[in-house]
Structure formats: structure tokens, C-alpha cells
């Protein structure tokens, strides 16, 4: 085992991690650990744009953007955080332009902007052109530009290093009111080098989690195979809570049957949804902004059309995205990649034929709780000094119960930068925390167990069964009954997981072994999502309970906080699930009192 020492360790090399690295790398000794190569991260798959109230093409301001974000998140957004994000959005876009990002331009040579779902002029009056974009590969351009600037600043990368544990210590401390508590501190991380199978311990003053999402708990997903929630998983296992995990976004327009994303930019540029009657059904569900309503509303409307028998295709299980009224030249200029996806994967020509689409699991609104300084919280308000999180792994919460399109590319830039600046600043004055004895012991034991277990169960079979039940029971419509089915299923998966066999017994590039470890994270996170969904007896944003179809601000306008707690038994748990303790955290309300959410 090797031990390395850095001021700042960044876990993950997507947009948030590399944006942080550009800041931290210039001010402190920094290394980025990534389980992939830097330009492989899923930020690169983002398409439509990054919203900022530049007002380059029409009147706009950050306050309207803040309001849209709060309303889009169905009032579960922390409004102070949304305000920070909307204000700093403008500089975030300008920063990227200065770094070299090739935005599309207006005839005057300024950054062009286009419409996007839920982004409106003057508090919902009409769609507004707020999204800054580079064709339909904005995420690709952001990822490339950030990597280019990491190269420029000589940021050190450890490629294909899987971080499998957070090293924390606990100290006795006393609160202002005199009550004693255990204060966590970060000491470093443990990682597994894919090339050699060796463990490496990285001691660090600051650690930034930027590991992205966990979409692989679902079968139909726009997420990469590698989005297995590792960062959320390791934090949870070390007693750090996970916030609002019941809220998962289903993007309306995944390619039917495949889940591959077709950007909302298609609808921003004028495409519309139709059912088997050829009807533009969004006129019924959101009369004002129609197909540009927020994603949760559009996804539910689509699923409802299918459920009521107006789906298309041999199994009537999808609807159609119609671009045929748009000029081919317009499609080629603004949406080249996604129309190519339709041609390559479904053999459909979007110039002349509507494209089969259905909602696809896309984004975790929840994650590791942080404050607006990107500092990770060990409870509702106690920070863990030196530990930061940004991007999809984190929950600030700027997305509340439903993220608006483009706000994730914004989130990674605003809070990635904040995390990088703060981590380097903290490292300037902080001392290294002593590593615990045998820091790698827990990880070594986990890997040994996975490597030597020989019960014959296949990792891929358990993962498929998990994804099937999550798609069937935890997608856009949920009930107590469907959620209970998932919980019962997960109990059997956990038992099977204890009896897995990994075939590859080698040390080098053993991805078979890592897939087994990743499945452990997926199972744990699926359970947290499901328990939190059972507890939330209301419908809000991405979480829709058919047995509780209304939003209930009196009882549920609060964040959920899930803790791993071996003291919780099935008998003591309200949800009858052992090992998870559910608490709540107040929502920060500044300007906007909750209103009925109509579009």
C-alpha cells in the first residue's frame, strides 16, 4: 500500500471536479482522482445549455432565474442557494468563455441564448431565451474546456483510481448551547488503482467529492454505466447523511426502449410531443408553456398518455417527439447530435418522421448535504471541516424536488468553483489530520469479501433485477404498494449479494470486481431512495405518489435526511426498515412563499 499526501484531493473529474481543480490547483497542492479518464465523465453527455441571465437577446435578470428555479423545484429549493446560483451564473458563463468555450453566437458576436423548459420571463409570463449553448453538445464543450484548462494549469490526475472509502475521525466537541457531540473531520481517502489492483491512501487537508450521480439504480436511464453513486455511497457508509434522495428526475425525452437522452433543446427549438392520435397533448396539461413545462410535469403527462391508451408503437408504450415542422437547416444548425442519435440507434429520420420517446431516469436531485459554501454537513447544520461536495453528488439544495433543464451545468460550474476556492483556502491554514491506524483496512476487507465470496450469484443478474423493479415501481408514478414491493425485493437482493461470485480473480484491470463493489453502492442507495419515498406521503416535483396526489406544505415542506444507523430496527422504524434513520431539515425560504405550481 502506498500513502500520498496532498493539500487538496478532488474525487471525480467531471465538470464539478475539474472546475474545482482549476481553482484549487493554482493555490494548493492538488490531485484529482477519477475512476475514468478525465474527458470520459458524463458531463460530456449534457446537451442543451447552461442558463444565465445575460440578457444578450432579450430582457432578463437573475431574480427571474431564481424564481424559476424555486418554482421549478416545487418550493423544496433552498432559496438562498438558488439566489447564489442565479447571480453567479453570469460570471460562470463568462469564465467559461474566457477559458475558450466555443459558444454559439448572435449576429452581433455575443453569446447566443435559447429557450429551455421552466425558464420564463417575469415570473412565468412566457418562455425566455436564457440558455447559453454550443449546438447540442454544451456539456461536451464544457468538459473539454475544463480539461484543457486543467492541462494549462498542470493539474495532477490519477486516472482509473476508484475512491472506495472516506477517512474520517471523530472528536468530542461541544455546541454553543453546551451540548456535547461528535465532530467529524476529514483525513483523506482510500483508492483502488484499476491497473494494478493496489490500494493507495491519499492523506489530505481538504477533500472534494465530485463523483456525479447514481442513475444506474434504474434500467431506463440516460446515465453512463459508470454512474453508480460511489461518492454518495462512501459518504453514507461513514455516517454522513443523504438529503432528499426520494427525488429523482425522469427526463421526458429518452429514445424509446434505450433511454439515450434527446435534449430538451429540441423542444426549446420548437419540437413538440404528440400521442397516438397525433394530438399535441401538452396543451391540455400546461396550457401556457405547453411542451416547455418543467420535466417532472412533461414526464408524468407522457406516462399518463401511455397509461390511458394513447401510446404509440406495437406495444403502445411511448409517445412521439415531432420535429417535422422545423426546417432541416434549423435542425442541422442547432440539434445535430441528437438527430444523429435518432438515426443511429432507432433508424428514424427526424426531418420527416417523429421520434419515439419515453421518460428516462436522468438526475438525482438529492445527495450529500452541503451549505452554500459547498461544505459538507454531518447533520442539519454542523459542517465537516475540510470536506466539500459539488455537482450531482451534492444537495445544496438548488434543485429542490425537480431540477430545471440547464441548471446542472450551472450547478457544477458555480459550486465546483466555490468548492475549489474554499478547499484551497482551508488547506492554507489547516493541519493534516492523523490517519487512523490501518486506514485501508475496511476497503481491503470489502474487496477480499467480494473476491473470495463463492455463492454463485451473478452481479449482473442482481443488478438487472434491481433496475427492473426500480423502473416498474419507483418511476414517475409511485404508491405505498409499489414502494413496498421494491423494499421487499431489495431485501432479497441484499441476501443474494452476500452470495455473489466474481469470476475474474486477477489483479490487473479487474472491472468484474469493481462492478460488484459498485452494485453494493447501488443497492444501498436504491434502499435510501425507496425508504425516503415511502416516508414522503405527498406529491412534489419528481416524487409523485398516486395515493397522496397533492403537495402537502404543512407536513412535508422540508428536506429529508437519511442516516445509516445500525441502531434502527425494523420494529423501531416507522417504515419498518432496519438500518436507516430518517430525519428532516427545514427549507430556507427568503423571497418566495409557496404558491400553486401551474404553467
Amino acid at each position, binding site marked *: 500500500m502506498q500513502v500520498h499526501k496532498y493539500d487538496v484531493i478532488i474525487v471525480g473529474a467531471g465538470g464539478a471536479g475539474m472546475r474545482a481543480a482549476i481553482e484549487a490547483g493554482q493555490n494548493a497542492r492538488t490531485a484529482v482522482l477519477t475512476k475514468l479518464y478525465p474527458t470520459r465523465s458524463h458531463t460530456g453527455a449534457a446537451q442543451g445549455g447552461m442558463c444565465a441571465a445575460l440578457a444578450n437577446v432579450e430582457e432578463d435578470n437573475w431574480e427571474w432565474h431564481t424564481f424559476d428555479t424555486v418554482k421549478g423545484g416545487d418550493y423544496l429549493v433552498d432559496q438562498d442557494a438558488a439566489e447564489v446560483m442565479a447571480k453567479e451564473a453570469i460570471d460562470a458563463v463568462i469564465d467559461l468563455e474566457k477559458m475558450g468555450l466555443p459558444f454559439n453566437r448572435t449576429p452581433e*458576436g455575443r453569446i447566443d441564448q435559447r429557450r429551455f423548459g421552466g425558464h420564463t420571463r417575469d415570473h412565468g409570463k412566457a418562455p425566455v431565451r436564457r440558455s447559453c449553448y454550443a449546438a447540442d453538445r454544451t456539456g461536451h464543450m464544457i468538459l473539454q474546456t475544463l480539461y484543457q484548462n486543467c492541462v494549462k494549469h498542470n493539474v495532477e490526475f490519477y486516472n482509473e483510481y476508484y475512491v472506495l472509502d472516506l477517512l474520517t475521525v471523530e472528536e468530542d466537541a461541544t455546541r454553543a448551547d453546551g451540548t456535547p457531540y461528535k465532530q467529524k473531520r476529514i483525513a483523506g481517502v482510500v483508492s483502488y488503482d484499476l491497473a494494478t489492483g493496489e490500494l493507495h491512501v491519499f492523506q489530505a487537508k481538504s477533500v472534494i467529492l465530485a463523483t456525479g450521480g447514481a442513475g444506474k439504480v434504474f434500467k431506463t436511464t440516460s446515465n453512463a454505466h459508470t454512474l453508480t453513486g460511489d461518492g454518495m455511497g462512501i459518504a453514507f457508509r461513514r455516517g454522513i447523511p443523504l438529503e432528499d434522495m426520494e427525488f429523482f428526475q425522469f427526463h421526458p425525452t429518452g429514445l424509446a426502449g434505450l433511454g439515450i437522452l434527446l435534449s430538451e433543446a429540441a423542444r426549446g427549438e420548437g419540437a413538440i410531443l404528440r400521442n397516438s392520435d397525433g394530438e399535441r397533448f401538452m396543451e391540455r396539461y400546461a396550457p401556457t408553456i405547453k411542451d416547455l413545462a418543467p420535466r417532472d410535469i412533461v414526464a408524468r403527462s407522457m406516462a399518463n398518455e401511455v397509461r390511458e391508451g394513447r401510446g*404509440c408503437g406495437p406495444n403502445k408504450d411511448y409517445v412521439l417527439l415531432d420535429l417535422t415542422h422545423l426546417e432541416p437547416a434549423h435542425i442541422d444548425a442547432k440539434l445535430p447530435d441528437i438527430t444523429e442519435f435518432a438515426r443511429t440507434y432507432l433508424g428514424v429520420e427526424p426531418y420527416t418522421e417523429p421520434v419515439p420517446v419515453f421518460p428516462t431516469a436522468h438526475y438525482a436531485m438529492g445527495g450529500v448535504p452541503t451549505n452554500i459554501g459547498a461544505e459538507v454537513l454531518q447533520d442539519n447544520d454542523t459542517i465537516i471541516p475540510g470536506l466539500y461536495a459539488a455537482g450531482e453528488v451534492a444537495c445544496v439544495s438548488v434543485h429542490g424536488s425537480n431540477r430545471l433543464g440547464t441548471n446542472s451545468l450551472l450547478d457544477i460550474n458555480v459550486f465546483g468553483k466555490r468548492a475549489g476556492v474554499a478547499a484551497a483556502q482551508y488547506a492554507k491554514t489547516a493541519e493534516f489530520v492523523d490517519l487512523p491506524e490501518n486506514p485501508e483496512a475496511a476497503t481491503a476487507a470489502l474487496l477480499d469479501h467480494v473476491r473470495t465470496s463463492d455463492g454463485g450469484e451473478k452481479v449482473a443478474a442482481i443488478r438487472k433485477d434491481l433496475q427492473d423493479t426500480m423502473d416498474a415501481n419507483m418511476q414517475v408514478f409511485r404508491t405505498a404498494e409499489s414502494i413496498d414491493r421494491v423494499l421487499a425485493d431489495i431485501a432479497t437482493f441484499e441476501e443474494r449479494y452476500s452470495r455473489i461470485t466474481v469470476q475474474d480473480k486477477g489483479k490487473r484491470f479487474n*472491472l468484474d470486481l469493481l462492478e460488484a463493489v459498485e452494485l453494493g453502492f447501488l443497492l444501498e442507495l436504491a434502499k435510501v431512495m425507496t425508504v425516503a419515498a415511502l416516508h414522503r406521503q405527498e406529491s412534489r416535483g419528481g416524487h409523485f405518489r398516486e395515493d397522496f396526489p397533492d403537495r402537502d406544505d404543512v407536513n412535508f415542506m422540508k428536506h429529508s435526511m437519511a442516516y445509516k444507523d445500525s441502531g434502527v430496527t425494523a420494529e423501531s422504524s416507522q417504515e419498518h426498515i432496519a438500518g436507516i434513520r430518517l430525519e428532516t431539515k427545514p427549507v430556507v425560504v427568503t423571497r418566495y412563499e409557496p404558491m400553486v405550481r401551474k404553467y
Partner: protein
Amino acid sequence: MSPIETAETAPEPASKIELPAHMGGGGEIPTFDVTLRVRRYDPEFSEDSTWEDFTMTMYGTDRVLDALHKVKWEQDGSLSFRRSCAHGVCGSDAMRINGRNRLACKTLLKDLDTSKPITVEPIKGLPVEKDLIVDMEPFFQSYREIMPFLINRGHEPSKERLQSAEERERFDDTTKCILCAACTSSCPVFWTDGQYFGPAAIVNAHRFIFDSRDDAGDMRLEILNDKEGVWRCRTTFNCTEACPRGIQVTQAIAEVKQAILARQV
């Protein structure tokens, strides 16, 4: 360029249209049997590489990556390959499929001849680590050497720099690169001379040389005027054929050559 209709000026689409009867519905998705013939290598157990056949039933919408997953997940968990996004944007799974460099996630099985085994090998010219995994470090080293970042010596404006749509269009093609190495590892010059920068590094130099905001074009042209630079290119077009993003790679290399010559005049 003729003006393009925007969402604001386009006519509002009809609330209801007649869909042709066939629309939005094909029949059943066909299934077929395929054999993958995969180049296996694991120096931990043997210094020799061997071919191994795997046969399975697949669907009409499946890609080579789906077949590789089926092998790994159901038949032989030790089969090793990189992949992530699975739809052609991350660049992890470039490999040699039936002798051509392609992304496994963008190659549909139905578009290959499935009556014969489909050969799958690692990309050439980079050291093989295990099965389909190669050492990407030499590839990224060449990329870093061309200074792949915007260098601007002027005053930092407080707002964005201006760039006309035409100036932006000038380097659009080479911004699409995903660094998958399909082009570089398809190049016969690169196979015999690992010192050659290779097409991908030149493509990324092109992306900055022709960006109106960049001031370091001369430095990059100097780097590529090296004996291991653009002049090694023999214009065989392998790179252009291999590029999964449709970048006109050979043309980009030619434009860099012309820029060097124009500078020397």
C-alpha cells in the same frame, strides 16, 4: 448563409395531425445469433494473446457493446474493456471491429455481417494492457504537447469576447473531438512511428489555431512543423474514416499544413 427560422419566427405547429398508420410503430424487434471473436490477452496469466469465440442471441437494436456486455455479464466476467456513456460521446470504447476502428457503442450488430464471426481487437499502436484495454498515456501525451488550451494575450474584457458566427464556424468541426483515439490508432504512420503526434493531436491544435480568439497559433504551428509533426501525414484518410464524430480529420491536417506554408512565405 441564409437566415434560419428560430423558435420565435417558425409557425406554431398544428394541435392535431393525422399520423400515417405505420408511424411510431414497427413490428417485433428481430433477434439473431452472433459470434464475437475477441482478442484476449492477460499478461498476469500468459504472455500470449489468443482469439476466443463467444456466441449469443441478440436483438436488432443491439450494438457491439451490448454483445460484449452479454459476454462479460453472462459468460466470462474476466473479459475486460472500457466503456462509460454507451452512446458515442465519452470516447471510452474505441476498438477494432472487423478490422476497422469504431466505437463499440455506436456500431449496431445488424449493420455488420452476422453470418460470420465479428472480430474485436484492441486499437493498434498503443501498448495492450489486458484484452481490449490499451495504455492511453502516449496518446494523451501528444495531445498535451500541442498546448490544447486558449491562449489570449490581450486585455481580459469584463464581458465575453466577441466572435462572429462565421469565425465560430471556422473551427466548429474540430471542436467535436472526444479523444477516443480511433483516428490516431488507425494511422499507418503512427503504427510504425509512435513519436508521430498523430491525427487527434493535430485536430486539437487545429481547434485553437483557427479560433479567432487565440493568439498562440504560431507556437502551435512551430510545434507541428517538427519532423514528427504534420509532414509525416501520408493522406491515407484512415483517420477520417475512423472518426466516430464525422470530423474531416485529413482536411484539418491539410489546413494546418497550408497554414505552416503560408506562414513561411
